[in-house]
């Protein structure tokens, strides 16, 4: 979707707070939200659907509310959508337990367990049986001119632009369909764009921007 989340190259967001204290969580609730997002999720969810639910937060909230707050709102929206939580429960803060009878009981995991088994959280998104690129390295490509109203990972700033295939990464889950609950694989490439191809003021600057793009975002050109 052409939402507020698609920020690359947008202007008017002011300076960056660079002198930030180095701390994982500035507030207790930030840590709780991070941990909650690790422990539980609505059924049928995919990372792409979750991201799309975050993108759908009203633009002014997306820009104004704290970062992990938007995670909490996203989580809430997915639980409500899955009929696990209700607006009423959220308003009152009181759980009506009728809706969760058939859900698995959560296990208690210790810090020591999590530390030792953290590698289980390294999710693979590729299909190891498919590793043949259909576009060659150094091939010139043109990206799609349009996105669509669903979740997609071709940002506005890189649409309708010429790039060069830099690297092939195998076939990865295609996010546009994954966000609709459909798991398919598609070849994924790092594509290199000259800065001057993307930005009007970049003429003569020898910088490059690399994006990881799926095959159906790309058209081979001469």
């Amino acid at each position, binding site marked *: 979707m052409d939402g507020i989340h698609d*920020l690359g*190259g947008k202007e008017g967001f002011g300076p960056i*707070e660079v002198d930030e204290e180095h701390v994982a969580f500035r507030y207790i609730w930030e840590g709780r939200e991070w941990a909650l997002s*690790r422990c539980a999720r609505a059924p049928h969810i995919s990372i792409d659907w979750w991201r799309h639910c975050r993108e759908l937060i009203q633009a002014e909230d997306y820009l104004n509310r704290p970062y992990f707050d938007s995670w909490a709102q996203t989580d809430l929206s997915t639980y409500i959508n899955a009929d696990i939580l209700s607006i009423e429960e959220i308003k009152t803060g009181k*759980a009506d337990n009728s809706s969760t009878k058939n859900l698995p009981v959560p296990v208690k995991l210790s810090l020591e367990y*999590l530390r030792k088994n953290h590698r289980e959280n390294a999710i693979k998104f590729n299909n190891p049986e498919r590793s043949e690129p259909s576009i060659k390295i150094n091939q010139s490509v043109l990206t799609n001119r349009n996105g669509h109203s*669903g979740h997609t990972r071709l940002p506005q700033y890189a649409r309708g632009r010429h790039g060069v295939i830099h690297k092939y990464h195998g076939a990865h889950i295609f996010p546009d369909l994954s966000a609709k609950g459909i798991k398919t694989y598609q070849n994924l490439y790092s594509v290199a764009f000259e800065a001057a191809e993307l930005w009007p003021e970049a003429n003569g600057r020898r910088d490059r921007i690399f994006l990881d793009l799926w095959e159906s975002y790309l058209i081979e050109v001469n």
Partner: protein
Amino acid sequence: MSKFDSKRITEIHQHLHTHLPSDSALRVKTLESLLVEKGLVNGETIDAWVELYSEVIGPKRGAEIVALAWTDPEFKQRLMNNASLAIDELGFLGTATGHLQVVENTPLVHNLVVCTLCSCYPFSILGIAPAWYKTAAYRSRIVRNPRSVLEEFGVEIDDSIEIRVWDSTAELRYLVLPQQPEGSKSMDLKLLSSLVTRNSMIGTDRFLKINTRRKS
């Protein structure tokens, strides 16, 4: 009814906008207490996850990877070929590093990492991302004006150096391998890793120094 209905989520967000308390701490407390009460999460597991990312996992891990790459050419080779496999040797594989790519700074190249569409970050080796990494300001500007952003971070990059910005649009995470600072050849791993700043592994720092320890 489809469980993947954008319109329904939009309506839910409108309800939440109206009915959620404006205080973020209260919002998260509501979510947590409802999930605990419904038996969907275990309170002690939540505690353990908080502790894991407050105490155990942080940019120190990335710094160890960098220091090892500087001193062990074979490890560096494995790291450049398949970083996920290489960090698994060190026990650092985990959240969001299932597909990891290391990009190396050279005298002629400077690498920078961003996620313009959300805030993807290699959690299991750098910990929780700094707040600036998740701001609209960083996400919007770094792909368009990397040099002016670097100036704000106090990093001046000569025009002759190519800047490469990596926008993490897929499930592939990036780690910048900074250049080893002059005069550090004889240092041991522990000392070397103390020279590596978190920002240098994202790309908003470039010139590591042997007489300053990690600040950020």
